């Protein structure tokens, strides 16, 4: 009998031991998936930079800075009239570290008039992540990088005998059991930090005795495999700290970023106490939703810290009187999804999905949060400025460099259809500048003073049909210069020029410029009978705004490893570069279009400062309304139309141009 009992014990305990040993071994050896982080461009401040007070305050707000009336501390700024005193947070860039410091600047008429130091860049805003299936947001940190008060404070609140026990505090369990019995319900847990870590790792969701035994045994074994510092480090990186929509916040780095928009080492004592306090129940003590409850919990933690000697009386007094100081930067998150689609496209050929979701890469983009915000707002006004029947898409980049600053693929923030990237639509007259550029490049003796015939044409196409292009006003102007033909968007004259170039040669020319066309057998190509997305159109006009320098617009600037080592950087691919003099001739016509041509509303109605350049485009019965235009700083392409490709009452001038002009006025 005795032997039978012993056999049963051995039969149960030995497999159990090996099971728990396996579990703890997997905890010790577990490697976290570290999501890659995508950043906006850092705001560069320097003398004579164009920036309005609104734009600067928007940026500071988006980065989680708090406006104060007194001398700013780290992560705060003071504004007095047009002067700003900002205590920056610093950032580790791939090309060097920017240290936190007081930056003082004065704005005058939308320009940085004075700045100390002479140049400074703020930290870039996080605009997205590449998560693994678990949607866990986490960036690991060494325990030595966490403030001592927080490390000591965690133990004071969660496990005062942490340094003494071997994984389980039997005294603590007894104390909790007595308190629970006296209260008649579970009011106190006896779990040590090690047990909590095991519980988090194993994701137990039942509170059974067997589970407690598992947990205690695994905690004891874990303490034999890891030292106390390693357990604390694992705890700070593992523990669940709340929920940001579908994404769960794990680890102190993400918690500090989510709640305070600060790096961990810059958390003040009040911030640290709040974070330690909400571990007990991140939903119950959610400071964004339950501010009063969270404040009480934080102050309880501070009192415990005072009682246990983690902080002194003065620290307790100043910390317990502080407001929660939460960052409000979260509310702008949804603005970046359409832009992120471009980021994904541009890096998918360089990095595998698993690398992006696990290796913690840092992806630095050109996104300008303020311009993105204004672009989204402009698209959302489509219903007010045009009608609720049409959709819109807007792409914004630097005019002279290839930096994609903003992109929105819908007038509705909830839409998941990114028209800027996916909607292939006929581009109409937007093709014309390219026809004239091809003429300048390929036809000997052709110039903008050359005479073209704007008269009736009748062409027999390859499929045997007769094609008779007409002008929008149903008139033919006869002999006109090439310049007039482009400025006034004359169809018949343009087709005449196209025929001189030749359809095949024109297609070949477009291919050399990086535009691949599948269907090319019809001369209507000269009038824009070609389907392109707004993003593709934008690339074409980047050629004009950069005077031939840029043929690709990039969202991604560069990518680094998690330790900051550079992995890749965007560079223009060298394709056929048109002669600058030829581009300048086309640009003269694009400028005239904004003063006397189809886009004269820009200067005559909206009074936008000159010089402006651009071209309208309208397809059959207003199915597509386009405008792509630029000044010396920005290139913006706007498309307006219906998803079902039905007619609209809008031309390029009465539709897309309206949104374009409003956006330019508001930037």
């Amino acid at each position, binding site marked *: 009998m005795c032997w039978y009992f012993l056999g049963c014990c051995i039969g149960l305990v030995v497999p159990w031991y090996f099971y728990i040993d396996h579990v703890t071994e997997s905890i010790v050896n577990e490697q976290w998936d570290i999501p890659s982080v995508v950043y906006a461009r850092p705001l560069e401040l*320097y003398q004579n930079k164009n920036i309005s007070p609104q734009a600067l305050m928007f940026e500071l707000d988006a980065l989680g800075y708090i406006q104060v009336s007194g001398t700013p501390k780290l992560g705060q700024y003071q504004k007095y009239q047009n002067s700003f005193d900002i205590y920056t947070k610093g950032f580790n860039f791939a090309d060097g570290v920017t240290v936190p410091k007081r930056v003082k600047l004065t704005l005058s008429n939308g320009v940085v008039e004075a700045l100390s130091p*002479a140049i400074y860049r703020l930290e870039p805003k996080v605009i997205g992540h590449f998560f693994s299936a678990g949607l866990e947001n986490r960036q690991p940190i060494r325990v030595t990088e966490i403030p001592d008060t927080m490390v000591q404070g965690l133990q004071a609140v969660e496990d005062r005998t942490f340094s003494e026990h071997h994984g389980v505090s039997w005294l603590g369990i007894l104390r909790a059991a007595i308190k629970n019995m006296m209260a008649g319900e579970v009011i106190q847990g006896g779990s040590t930090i090690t047990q909590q870590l095991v519980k988090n790792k194993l994701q137990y969701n039942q509170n059974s005795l067997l589970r407690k035994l598992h947990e205690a045994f695994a905690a004891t074994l874990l303490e034999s495999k890891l030292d106390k510092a390693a357990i604390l480090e694992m705890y700070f990186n593992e523990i669940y700290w709340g929920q940001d929509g579908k994404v769960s916040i794990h680890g102190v780095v993400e918690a500090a970023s989510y709640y305070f928009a600060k790096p961990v080492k810059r958390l003040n004592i009040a911030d640290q106490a709040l974070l330690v306090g909400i571990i007990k129940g991140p939903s119950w003590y959610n400071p964004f939703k339950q501010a009063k409850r969270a404040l009480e919990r934080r102050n309880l933690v501070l009192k415990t810290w005072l009682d246990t000697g983690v902080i002194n009386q003065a620290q307790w007094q100043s910390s317990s009187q502080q407001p929660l100081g939460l960052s409000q930067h979260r509310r702008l998150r949804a603005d970046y999804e359409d832009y992120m689609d471009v980021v994904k496209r541009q890096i998918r050929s360089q990095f595998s999905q698993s690398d992006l979701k696990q290796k913690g890469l840092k992806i630095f983009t050109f996104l300008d949060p303020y311009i993105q915000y204004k672009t989204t707002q402009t698209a959302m006004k489509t219903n007010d400025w045009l009608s609720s029947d049409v959709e819109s898409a807007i792409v914004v980049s*630097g005019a*002279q460099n290839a*930096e994609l600053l903003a992109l929105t693929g819908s007038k509705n923030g909830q839409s998941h259809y990114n028209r800027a990237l996916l909607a292939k639509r006929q581009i109409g007259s937007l093709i014309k500048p390219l026809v004239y550029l091809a003429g300048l490049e390929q036809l000997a003796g052709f110039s903008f003073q050359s005479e073209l015939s704007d008269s009736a044409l009748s062409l027999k196409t390859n499929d045997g049909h007769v094609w008779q292009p007409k002008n929008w006003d149903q008139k033919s102007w006869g002999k006109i210069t090439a310049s007039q033909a482009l400025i006034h968007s004359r169809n018949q004259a343009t087709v005449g020029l196209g025929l001189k170039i030749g359809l095949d040669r024109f297609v070949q020319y477009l291919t050399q410029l990086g535009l691949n066309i599948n269907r090319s057998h019809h001369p209507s190509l000269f009038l824009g009978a070609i389907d392109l997305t707004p993003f593709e159109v934008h690339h074409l006009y980047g050629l004009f705004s950069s005077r031939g320098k840029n043929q690709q617009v990039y969202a991604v600037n560069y990518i680094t490893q998690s330790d900051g080592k550079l992995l890749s950087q965007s560079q223009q691919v060298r394709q056929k570069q048109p002669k600058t003099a030829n581009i300048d001739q086309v640009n003269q016509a694009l400028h005239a279009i904004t003063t006397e041509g189809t886009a004269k509303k820009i200067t005559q109605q909206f009074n936008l400062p000159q010089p402006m350049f651009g071209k309208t485009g309208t397809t059959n019965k207003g199915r597509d309304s386009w405008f792509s235009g630029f000044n010396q700083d920005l290139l913006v392409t706007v498309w307006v139309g219906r998803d079902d490709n039905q007619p609209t009452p809008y031309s390029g001038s009465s539709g897309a141009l309206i949104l374009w002009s409003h956006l330019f006025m508001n930037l």
Partner: protein
Amino acid sequence: MNFCFYRGVLATILILALSHCSQRKPIDITDDVRDPSDHNTSIIQIAPMVPEAVQILINEAEAQIENGLVNEAILTFNRALSISPTSATVHQHLAEVYLSEGDYKAAFKWSNWVFTEGPKHGPICERARRTLALAAEMLGDVETQAMALDAIASCTQVSTPKY
């Protein structure tokens, strides 16, 4: 036997000599591009204006290059270019970094931009043409190399002799 041996030795020496002739000495930006240009004696000297912030970044990038941090320097030059997208000085610095790093396509692209859009007299003019010539040489583009070398002279406007 002896004849064969001597032929073998002769062939080896010939191959070594030829391979030495075909090896270009490594490009030194200071010696091959900058120094000759610094002595530009043109009576018309065009030194493109550079905003203070851009000059600070150029200095920072130069220091990074001296410390062997070439990738970091390229990023710093790109910061400068974001501030001043048409700065011929920054374009030329980038061309020289890429040339010294052996990225001849990039060096060609950046120096070609300065060649067409940059100043037509003075040191930057001359440096761009030297860089373009070297990049074109390394890419085997003899036509561009010859054109760039010819164009170096145009960066110097000599004064008319007065008798």
